[in-house]
């Protein structure tokens, strides 16, 4: 099974490079969040003012379990993602803000969906990425919902 001292040497090597990786990633994440992300307090202020659309990038199953009140779901991994975006684009551009979110800062779906929304024509100035995500919103006790009627009305109505 090998020598204990060799395991120790390998572990030290891994920890050494891990520190570099961690501090590089940490610095990069802070920079990215400051550049693109919006804090939960700012998002809540926007929510209270109204005239905004929240877009949930998670799967429909996660959305159904609970989402920010009033949010619509455009699951990033759905085969119909582009259909949803096309159907929602008019509504999204009519709002003052479009806030995209997913689970939290360790989830990249909101950033990827935001890119797709930009490519589809959502105004860059209106688009905000709520990096802290649904979990932080829920922890703060801000309004959440399990209601699917708005989602169904928005996309089903467009299909008729």
């Amino acid at each position, binding site marked *: *099974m*090998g*020598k204990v001292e*060799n*395991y120790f*040497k*390998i572990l030290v*090597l*891994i*920890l050494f*490079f*891990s520190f570099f*990786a*961690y501090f590089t*990633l*940490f610095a990069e*994440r802070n920079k990215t969040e400051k550049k693109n992300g919006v804090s939960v307090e700012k998002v809540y202020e926007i929510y209270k003012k109204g005239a905004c659309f929240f877009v949930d990038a*998670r*799967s429909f*199953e*996660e959305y159904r379990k609970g989402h920010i009140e009033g949010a619509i779901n455009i699951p*990033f*991994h759905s085969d119909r993602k582009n259909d949803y975006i096309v159907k929602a684009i008019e509504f999204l551009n009519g709002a003052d803000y479009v806030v995209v979110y*997913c*689970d*939290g*800062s*360790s*989830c*990249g*779906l909101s950033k*990827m969906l935001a890119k797709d929304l930009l490519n589809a024509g959502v105004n860059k100035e209106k688009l905000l990425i709520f990096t802290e995500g649904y*979990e932080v919103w829920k922890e703060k006790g801000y309004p959440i919902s399990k209601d699917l009627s708005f989602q169904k009305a928005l996309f089903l109505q467009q299909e008729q």
Partner: protein
Amino acid sequence: MPQFLVLPFASFITVSEIVLGFLFLFGVYEIETAVLLILLNLVFVFAMGSAIIRGIDTSCGCFAANGETLSFKDILRDLVFIFLILWVILGRKYGKSDS
């Protein structure tokens, strides 16, 4: 996992894979590297199996970019890796003893 541990843990796991991979490739500390790689793959197998059984949505994080959620083929892939590591080690061991 608590949010504050995600980044350090991700750094550690990613670096472990890279460091162990290179050490194994160049035959440095062969047995120890092989054991650690097998353990790492076993941890992945158990973690993925647990996520699949519990129905956890993994469309975020590590698997977000490729657009696929976890399935048993990911577990099978890691089992194949374990088999290949054992094959290389046994090959090196019996290859050396033959010469």
